[in-house]
């Protein structure tokens, strides 16, 4: 691959040639590594060169290549560069980026299956064009030796091509037959084989009609459908793998060594640094801190944790380092148990039979019966087995589901392509159809409708208070402190002896007074409801800084769009009454519930389902997983916990919720297109079948009819883009 070469200095006009040349010199050595990045927001030529330029400007980056189709970048660097450097540089340049685990991607990047199909498709296409060319001569009246010669040449092209290109159909048909089942591939294989076989026989007998071109165009169109299907599915699968790659699989032991979470045993002591996610279920043995349980419970306020308290995998440690004794690791953790629950839900979802399946179930037997009836009828009427077989084969070819085979994949490719461009990834094959049926939407609050991170809302502090607060806040990694440091515009005051008291707040001295920023009880204030932190300077009255969770970008638009699309909107959250009420009012959802436990969420969704509603669940936390699994169709944001993303049918790649409204509309349109396509296929069959049964079908008619219906179906699907 050419992109593995060293870049020329022109590769990035913005950076000096020095570091690049240096990096290029080092690249290829032992320190060479490849980093994969997900870039959910890129969409144009400017983005491609912008991202590549930003990446190449980082010292140590040898090469960077953006793939716009997959919205990814592969970066070749030396050891000194880690993914965080890259994502930060991209964030500075204005591009959202996430690191991907190359291990999880390795299985999918090769994508051997779809390249194999593309190869077979290409071969079939070239053979079809050549045979068509020869057939034109026959159709326009070549006779005797010329016709036979052309037929023989066609056979020489068609037979090897069919043997190579139609293998996927033959294999599937053989598998189905050996299990005593009928699938779409059985009539397809039968039609291709019979058409080829009969054409050889006719050619040998200097007959008038040979169906080589029909056999080839059948193979070509059906392979096209199969290829589109495969591509959509691999894109989804690789992206799903991509998302699991975002999870942290490592832990730090108490002695400082880093281990794989899978290697941890019960009773091991591990260290959880502030800001890190707890990798296992365990009990705190040392340290004091605050724990963000939002992903597990939906509670937006952190809880205090000290020795003896239980922590769970997936929670985030906020302020102080904790030593945790492992009480459950790997498959035993709350997180994994939920993931198991999820796989059960998957099987129940796979029982949903798609429109294509339902069509195939009716279609296959009908075609076989028709062809057999044609053969029997004509044999009885004419007593000529050759003529009867000819007509039966013509019927089989003409009814063959070219249009039917393209009807669904063409539409779902167009629809999922459109959704992907909008930043929504379809993970499940039937998700699109299920989304089209949704009539109720249930939202989670924390992390879904909101960003799950606080912003300063109001305060009654003076300017000097603000300066002190800003200085104190800068010293902590607590989310409220970070929000404060970010949202206060006043320059920070100069403080001495700053120290963080884990689980309480930050303390310092300012002009001889002790100043404290932290929890209400520690500062000496009467706390009230809502998210707040308190500042006390010396013996002055404590001052409150109140926060609220900021609405996620596009949340209001999404709610409005979904309501306009006729969906009932509910808000179900594990957070406190007040927090939920504020948000519900802001965004205009009348039907909301607060302090809902995880199993109650699932039960709520189940209740709606029992009332005959098709629920679309949108959520991100562990507390939503049950509900996500229970819902008719589910969507989670990319920031959601692994388990929640695994169970969801679709994943939002970007930060905005806005694609939701368009997604429902696209899904509904897609379903309408699929039904229209079935209609086109049915109309075409209702004309062509009588003609074939009457024995009037010629290879020319078959070729025309097949191509027209396939092209009509594809064009109809493209209207979705």
């Amino acid at each position, binding site marked *: 691959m050419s992109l593995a070469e060293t870049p020329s200095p022109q590769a990035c006009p913005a950076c000096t040639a020095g570091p690049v040349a240096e990096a290029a010199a080092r690249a290829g050595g032992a320190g060479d590594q490849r980093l994969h990045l997900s870039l959910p927001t890129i969409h144009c030529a400017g983005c*491609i060169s912008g991202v590549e330029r930003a990446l190449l400007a980082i010292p140590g980056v040898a090469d960077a290549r953006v793939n716009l189709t997959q919205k990814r970048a592969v970066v070749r660097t030396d050891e000194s560069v880690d993914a965080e450097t890259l994502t930060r540089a991209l964030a500075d340049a204005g591009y959202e980026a996430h690191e991907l685990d190359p291990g999880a991607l390795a299985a999918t990047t090769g994508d051997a299956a779809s390249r194999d199909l593309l190869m077979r498709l290409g071969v079939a296409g070239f053979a079809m064009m050549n045979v068509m060319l020869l057939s034109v001569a026959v159709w326009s009246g070549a006779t005797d030796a010329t016709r036979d010669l052309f037929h023989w040449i066609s056979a020489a092209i068609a037979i090897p091509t069919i043997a190579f290109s139609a293998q996927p159909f033959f294999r599937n048909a053989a598998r189905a037959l050996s299990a005593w089942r009928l699938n779409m591939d059985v009539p397809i294989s039968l039609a291709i084989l019979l058409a080829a076989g009969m054409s050889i026989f006719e050619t040998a007998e200097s007959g008038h009609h040979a169906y080589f071109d029909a056999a080839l165009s059948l193979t070509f169109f059906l392979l096209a459908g199969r290829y589109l299907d495969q591509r959509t599915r691999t894109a989804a699968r690789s992206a799903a793998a991509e998302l699991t790659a975002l999870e942290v699989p490592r832990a730090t032991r108490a002695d400082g060594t880093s281990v794989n979470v899978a290697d941890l045993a019960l009773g091991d002591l591990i260290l959880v640094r502030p800001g890190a996610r707890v990798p296992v279920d365990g009990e705190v043995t040392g340290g004091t801190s605050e724990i963000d349980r939002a992903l597990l419970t939906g509670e937006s306020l952190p809880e205090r944790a000290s020795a003896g308290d239980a922590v769970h995998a997936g929670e985030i440690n906020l302020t102080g380092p904790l030593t945790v004794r492992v009480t459950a690791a790997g498959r035993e953790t709350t997180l994994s148990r939920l993931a198991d629950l999820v796989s059960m839900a998957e099987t129940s979802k796979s029982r949903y039979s798609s429109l294509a399946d339902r069509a195939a179930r009716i279609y296959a037997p009908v075609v076989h019966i028709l062809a057999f009836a044609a053969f029997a009828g004509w044999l009885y009427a004419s007593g000529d087995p050759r003529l009867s077989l000819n007509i039966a084969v013509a019927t089989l070819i003409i009814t063959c589901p070219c249009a039917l085979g393209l009807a669904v994949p063409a539409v779902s490719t167009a629809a999922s392509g459109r959704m992907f461009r909008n930043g929504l990834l379809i993970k499940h094959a039937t998700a699109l159809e299920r989304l089209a049926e949704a009539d109720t939407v249930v939202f989670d609050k924390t992390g879904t409708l909101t960003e799950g991170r606080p912003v300063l809302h109001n305060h009654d502090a003076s300017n000097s208070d603000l300066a002190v607060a800003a200085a104190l806040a800068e010293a902590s990694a607590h989310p409220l402190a970070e929000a404060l440091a970010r949202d206060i515009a006043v320059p920070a005051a100069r403080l001495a002896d700053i120290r963080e008291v884990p689980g309480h707040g930050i303390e310092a001295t300012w002009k001889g007074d002790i100043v404290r920023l932290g929890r209400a009880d520690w500062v000496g204030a009467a706390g009230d409801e809502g998210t707040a932190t308190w500042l006390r300077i010396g013996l002055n009255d404590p001052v409150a800084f109140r926060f609220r969770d900021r609405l996620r970008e596009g949340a209001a638009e999404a709610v409005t769009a979904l309501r306009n699309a006729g969906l009932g909107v509910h808000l179900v959250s594990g957070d406190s009454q007040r927090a939920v009420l504020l948000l519900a009012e802001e965004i205009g959802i009348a039907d909301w519930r607060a302090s809902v436990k995880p199993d109650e969420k699932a039960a709520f969704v189940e209740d709606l389902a029992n009332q005959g509603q098709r629920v679309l669940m949108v959520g991100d936390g562990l507390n939503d997983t049950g509900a996500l699994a229970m819902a008719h169709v589910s969507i989670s944001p990319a920031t959601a916990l692994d388990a929640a993303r695994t169970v969801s049918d679709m994943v939002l790649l970007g930060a905005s919720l806005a694609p939701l409204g368009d997604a429902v509309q696209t899904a509904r349109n897609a379903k309408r297109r699929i039904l229209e396509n079935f209609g086109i296929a049915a109309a075409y069959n209702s004309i062509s079948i009588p003609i074939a049964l009457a024995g009037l079908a010629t290879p020319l008619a078959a070729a025309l009819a097949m191509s027209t219906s396939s092209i009509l179906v594809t064009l109809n699907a493209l209207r979705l883009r």
Partner: protein
Amino acid sequence: MEVLSILIPVSLLLGLVGLAAFFWTLRSRQYEDPEGDSRRILTDNYDDKPKS
């Protein structure tokens, strides 16, 4: 009709050349990023000389 003995091999040969070209594009992974490739022509990077 003698011309057929030239034309048919020629047309088959051309078809094979096309097929070989297709194999080459497939092998050199030119279908990995159709979306990106269609936009890269709009940038003026590597306009003076190709990326080595």
